[in-house]
């Protein structure tokens, strides 16, 4: 039999996450929208609320709660601020290669600080010459004694300027088919965050470029085996990154529906609230149907992940569906608000801008279809 109910404990996680989002995250939203910068106190609050510790095993200072709990937290935080949800989801993405492919010394060195939120992580794969096709990257490494020397440029990297620990992908200078993953720490000579992007949405979530000029890292910073780095980074993006975007999309979708419901009940036209109009009801119903379906896809994939089953295909389906429907929901929310939907005083205008950023992150909808087609044709 299939049980679709959350456990009492999971309900409490949701309650805790919702309370945190409404009381600790919401006050930062205006500042994030205005400045486009990550508020340091928000990062501190996320750390205090143990949000970075969710997927880290207990023996390394984490909570070991797994991916259903992570989905719940992301959904609740993104309901209030999808920019914060995005930042948080990529922090976990940065943590995942160390958890799954890191050796014992790397786990002991990095995970406790990452769990406490004292240090922040990200993954850097995308380059101007390749994101959807990671093998198109031109960042190279060469071996010099026991060290590796990396040169190249990464772009569209979430948390680029705030991350202390970056797991990045580079290819062997002498073997263009051999990719390896390395941990590069902030402050390493030759490594720096350069251009900071100004996105249309998710303002206050940092995205930018990383530059590596003959950046020397010791051999102990190699994650997994040399030449097997694609597996390290792509499985993190496939399972954790994609799952994270699903949580962000669900939260944003919920926010769109809640704002639309409130407006539709309050807004009087023809002497009655517009919620009695069938055309508005159709939109509300569509938003609800998509949200319910998206949740089923999302939590099924997350539950599979918690059971240790392969779930990247299921996450590809969930990522495609939830991000597409969240974008649709944001458009409908703005439509329901009429002229007010174009005003920045109303959150739905932000939701529409944020919704566009959901698409390309962790793989565009077109790439999701490529993955899904490969799955069904296999």
């Amino acid at each position, binding site marked *: 039999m299939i049980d679709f109910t959350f456990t009492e404990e999971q309900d*409490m996680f949701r309650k805790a996450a919702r309370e945190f989002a409404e009381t600790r995250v919401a006050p930062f939203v205006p500042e994030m929208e205005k400045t486009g910068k990550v508020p340091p106190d928000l990062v501190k609050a996320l750390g205090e609320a143990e949000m970075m510790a969710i997927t880290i095993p207990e023996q390394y200072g984490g909570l070991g709660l797994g991916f259903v709990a992570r989905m719940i937290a992301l959904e609740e935080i993104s309901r209030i601020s999808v920019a914060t949800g995005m930042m948080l989801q990529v922090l976990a993405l940065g943590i995942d290669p160390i958890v799954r492919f890191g050796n014992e010394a790397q786990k002991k060195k990095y995970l406790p600080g990452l769990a406490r939120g004292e240090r922040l992580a990200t993954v850097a794969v995308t380059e101007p010459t390749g994101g959807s096709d990671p093998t198109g990257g031109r960042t190279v490494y060469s071996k010099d004694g026991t060290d590796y020397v990396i040169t190249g440029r990464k772009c569209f990297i979430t948390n680029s300027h705030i991350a202390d620990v970056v797991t990045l992908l580079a290819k062997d200078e002498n073997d263009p088919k051999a990719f390896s993953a390395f941990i590069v720490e902030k402050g390493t000579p030759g490594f720096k965050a350069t251009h900071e992007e100004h996105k249309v949405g998710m303002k206050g979530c940092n995205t930018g470029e990383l530059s590596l000029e003959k950046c020397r890292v010791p051999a102990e910073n190699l994650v997994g085996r040399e030449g097997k780095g694609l597996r390290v980074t792509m499985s993190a993006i496939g399972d954790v990154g994609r799952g994270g975007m699903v949580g962000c999309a669900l939260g944003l979708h919920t926010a769109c529906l809640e704002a639309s419901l409130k407006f539709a009940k309050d807004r009087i036209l023809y002497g009655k609230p517009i919620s009695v109009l069938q055309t508005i009801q159709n939109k509300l119903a569509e938003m609800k149907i998509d949200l319910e379906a998206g949740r089923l896809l999302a939590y099924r994939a997350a539950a599979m992940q918690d059971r240790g089953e392969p779930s990247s295909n299921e996450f590809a389906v969930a990522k495609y569906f939830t991000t597409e429907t969240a974008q649709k929901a944001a458009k409908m929310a703005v439509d329901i608000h009429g002229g007010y939907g174009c005003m920045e005083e109303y959150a739905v205008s932000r939701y529409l801008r944020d919704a566009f950023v959901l698409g390309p992150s962790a793989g565009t909808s077109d790439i999701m279809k490529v993955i899904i087609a490969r799955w069904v044709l296999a």
Partner: protein
Amino acid sequence: MKIVVCVKAVPDPKEICRIRIDPVSKTLTRCEVPLVVNLLDKHALEAALAIKESSGAFVTVLSMGPPPADRIVKECMSLGADRGILLSDRAFAGADAFATAHTLARGIEKAGPFDVIFCGMASSDGATEWVGPQIAAFLDLPVVTMVRKFESRQGDRWLVLADWQNGYRRVEVRLPALFTVTRELNRPRALSFSGILKARSKTIEHWDLSSLGVSADSVGAQGSPTLVTEISPVENRRDAEMLRGTLEEKADQFVSRLAELGIV
């Protein structure tokens, strides 16, 4: 130090538009709306947990309610309470403040010796403010209501600042005693993921009528000397009345209307 905190499961005030009044029992229908810990009781729990952290204490949370109230007891344990007890029995249903206080008092007696009892000043649904003082009466304890600050705690002598009419009163109390608290006392802590995990190993004790050893006619609706005969929501209504004439005439009419309505 042993502290008992009485908490009540109340309908989530955020869902106020979904709260209905049962036309027969004249009580709020609780089960259709999610139950949450009464906000002022969270302040009471925070007071207990702060003492536990600063000078050590064993904190017991006690609630009376239907089985779904289990969750709010568990939530209090996730926040840091050491022991959780839910008094639940069909016979307890329909209790007024008197019968509620009586049942809680018997529960407190059964729970063992204690030094302090904390209650929220009032519940967000019933809002009588009577339960705390009546528990104190049943247990023959001193009581200070509307405590906003614990100024000092010297052994069994506590100095507290409490709201009183338009001012405050400073009261020295000898323990054991019962205090009802206001929201000014503290800022309740947030539920944390690790707190929820720690509460995994804590089990809630369920006590029914027989385990309390009280008679059915002393609890619930049967044991309630007061009966709510009517309850109705506040109706917000706005009327517009257009005044006509010159400015001076309209001003005169305005003053006359205010006088008619008893406003001036």
